[in-house]
């Protein structure tokens, strides 16, 4: 059911970016299941509504039914599917772990979900050349387990690494707590093999650390949210697991002090391997539901340094400690001990379950959850989030990888009440207006999908035509994950059915 709140706040004229085929309502030819059977075999196809219903969802607020789910084992099958879908004009939606938070894999126009989880082979771990080759369905944690025996790790790792696949991480340019030092997925991808919407297989990038051989199209594929091509193999670099890891925490009575500390740490030349902010709402939530007895201050900063030489790690940690002190940070403790480190990180780690259990009537939703702002604006951003939440009668926390400029939020709201959705939409619009006003960006880690399309379209207003030109150059029939990014509806609340029961 689509919610109707009256006039939709139009972020910009949809004609500038719209999905032409969709808008003109050109009918899609009927999907021929026997064709799918021919390509994938009966055991790798799902068409029963009970299966399709589950595949219509991810970790976002959205839900829409696909027409079929298919599971390829190899590149040739992916190519055959794309040739067929391109000719029959059927949308194809590539899917990894289904852990995306903005609806990237929700089939807004129906079509075939291409479940990549069975192309899950780690093909090569090449130590002398420091790269590995993997299929897109390889799970992040599994890759890291395989690399561990070589003393190596793959650093972009998002929090969902236990189920997130490399393909999905590439599609969303995923990153996590360590991005401040090691970067995001885009920084780790050396090259890839991609099946284009026409079925053509192309090899992009290289196997070397640097490359200046024409357009770096593999970097374009990273973050393209399954709209430009289907990654069937990726070449990734990895780094050694550090010998030493030291974590510290500092409490701040004023959000602004924490913010100033963040800015100075990043400008000081210190290289944190993690720099996390947790706000007062988050601390209270964790205390309320987990009884952790954390000090209820305005903000806590959790910082970490890692390296091969203890003196070097000491140096980084001391530098960050001093800066926290200078900005009136208190209760500062640091530790190399894994158990102590786990204790320091406990408040941050328990935040998700704490928010879910905060209040029986409130659900923790993923909306406007990963904007990035310049370092000097992190504290102001957190303050803005609190202000907007209060004004709109919802609860919002601010926490995140402030060393990367990434601010996470969760919106706690009564999902049954239509007016709460209206409030959420209003709050999100205001928050994104602020983000753009300070030269921030709509998404740092989770991508755009459906939920963030409105702000994305405003932020990228002068390049939307270019983006659509690129999209149509690669996908002339607009069959690959249509209706996302610049093609997504302007109003995320009514873009698809919601996964929540909302009272009429």
């Amino acid at each position: 059911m689509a919610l109707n709140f009256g006039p939709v706040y139009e972020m910009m004229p949809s004609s500038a970016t719209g999905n032409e085929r969709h808008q003109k309502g050109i009918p899609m030819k009927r999907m021929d299941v026997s064709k799918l059977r021919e390509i994938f075999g009966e055991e790798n196809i799902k068409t029963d509504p009970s299966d399709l219903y589950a595949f219509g969802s991810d970790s976002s607020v959205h839900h829409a039914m696909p027409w079929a789910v298919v599971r390829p084992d190899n590149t040739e099958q992916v190519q055959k599917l794309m040739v067929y879908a391109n000719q029959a004009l059927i949308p194809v939606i590539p899917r990894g772990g289904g852990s995306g938070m903005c609806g990237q894999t929700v089939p807004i126009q129906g079509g075939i979900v291409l479940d990549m989880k069975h192309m899950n082979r780690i093909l090569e771990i090449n130590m002398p050349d420091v790269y590995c080759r993997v299929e897109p369905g390889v799970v992040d944690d599994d890759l890291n387990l395989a690399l561990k025996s070589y003393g190596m790790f793959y650093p972009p790792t998002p929090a969902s690494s236990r189920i997130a696949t490399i393909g999905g991480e590439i599609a969303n340019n995923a990153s996590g707590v360590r991005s401040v030092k090691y970067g995001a997925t885009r920084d780790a991808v050396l090259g890839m093999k991609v099946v284009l919407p026409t079925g053509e297989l192309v090899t992009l990038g290289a196997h070397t650390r640097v490359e200046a051989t024409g357009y770096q199209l593999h970097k374009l594929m990273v973050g393209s949210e399954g709209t430009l091509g289907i990654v069937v193999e990726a070449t990734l670099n990895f780094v050694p697991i550090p010998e030493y890891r030291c974590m510290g925490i500092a409490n701040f009575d004023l959000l602004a002090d924490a913010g100033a500390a963040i800015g100075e740490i990043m400008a000081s030349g210190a290289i944190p391997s993690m720099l996390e902010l947790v706000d007062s709402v988050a601390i209270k939530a964790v205390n309320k539901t987990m009884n952790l007895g954390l000090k209820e201050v305005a903000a806590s900063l959790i910082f970490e340094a890692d390296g091969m030489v203890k003196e070097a790690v000491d140096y980084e940690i001391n530098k960050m400690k001093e800066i926290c002190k200078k900005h009136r940070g208190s209760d500062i403790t640091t530790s190399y001990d894994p158990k102590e480190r786990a204790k320091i990180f406990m408040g941050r780690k328990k935040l998700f379950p704490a928010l879910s259990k905060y209040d029986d009537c409130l659900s923790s939703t993923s909306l406007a959850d990963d904007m990035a702002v310049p370092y000097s604006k992190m504290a102001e951003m957190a303050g803005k989030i609190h202000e907007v939440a209060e004004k709109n009668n919802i609860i919002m926390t601010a926490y995140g990888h402030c060393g990367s400029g990434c601010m996470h939020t969760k919106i706690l709201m009564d999902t049954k009440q239509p007016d709460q959705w209206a409030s959420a939409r209003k709050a999100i619009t205001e928050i994104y207006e602020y983000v753009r006003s300070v030269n921030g960006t709509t998404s740092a880690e989770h991508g755009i999908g459906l939920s963030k399309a409105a702000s994305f379209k405003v932020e990228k207003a002068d390049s939307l035509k270019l983006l659509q030109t690129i999209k149509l150059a690669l996908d002339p029939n607009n069959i690959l994950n249509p209706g996302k990014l610049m093609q997504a509806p302007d109003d995320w609340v009514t873009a698809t059915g919601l996964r929540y029961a909302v009272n009429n």
Partner: protein
Amino acid sequence: METKKATRFNHLQKWESTLSACIRCGYCFEHCPLFKFTGWESDAPRAKLITAFGLLSGELELSETSADKLFNCFYCRRCEAACSSGVTLTDVFTDAKKDLVEMGYTGPGTTSITEAYCAQCLLCVQSCPHEARSHGENGIETDPVKCQSCGICVEICPAEAAKIVHTFGTGKADLIDASNRFLDTHTSAKAIVFACNWSYYPDLQASRLPESETHDRDYEIYVNMCAGRLETETLMAPFINHAWGVLVSCCPEDDCQHKDGGKRAKKQVTRLQSILKSLDIDPERLQIVEIPNGDKTLFQAEIDTFIDRLNALGPIT
């Protein structure tokens, strides 16, 4: 979206806010034995919650297939341990099953059934840890709501009449086939490890290593639902296929979900050790170790110790 509420889901109704509280992160499906076996997300715990939501809201039509999703569960509760929102998933499934049974859907899914040739010895009724089996007019009956698919009845039934039809790779035949396949295809193979689902085996969960990394593996781990249901054939088959040894992991005695699975397994291993001895095979080649929930490190250490011991013993000649 809630358009027409299926009011018949009286028990499921009380979980409405829980179904919204699930953030659908998907952390539950990594260790789910169903997902591990089929690889389909729609068999994973998250999908079951989505199914429950769909049925409750009326968005998903009630059918044999949608009902069956909720009858497929081994109640290992690994999903609950992994849940980032603290949802007690199996309680939701149980209440959904109550409603479904009232509406005439009984699965079986993973519920154990009893074949007509049952001798009605009542051993299964006595030993069911979940009081799911009873003797009535139609012989032995299983209560699909109470049954937690642990398979103790399957293991104990002398007539082999108690069965779990949908085993998702955890049944006797599945385990024997899989271990035989490993032993047949790996000249390096020495041991088979049967891990309780709670032993958090220290291995890749959902990906495959390159052939170059696996061709010389000396052991393989197979997951079963409870060490207490490992049958004689399952434990002895690897020896017929030239394994050097078999290692069983079980939960600590006071921590078995199926009451005394660990105890039963130990008894079984002791019995088989004496058979090995009578065949002049070193009984140390069959061992059982207790692995507390989640202790991957200990499990790996126990496997390494066992392999070292087997290397000292050499192949069975």
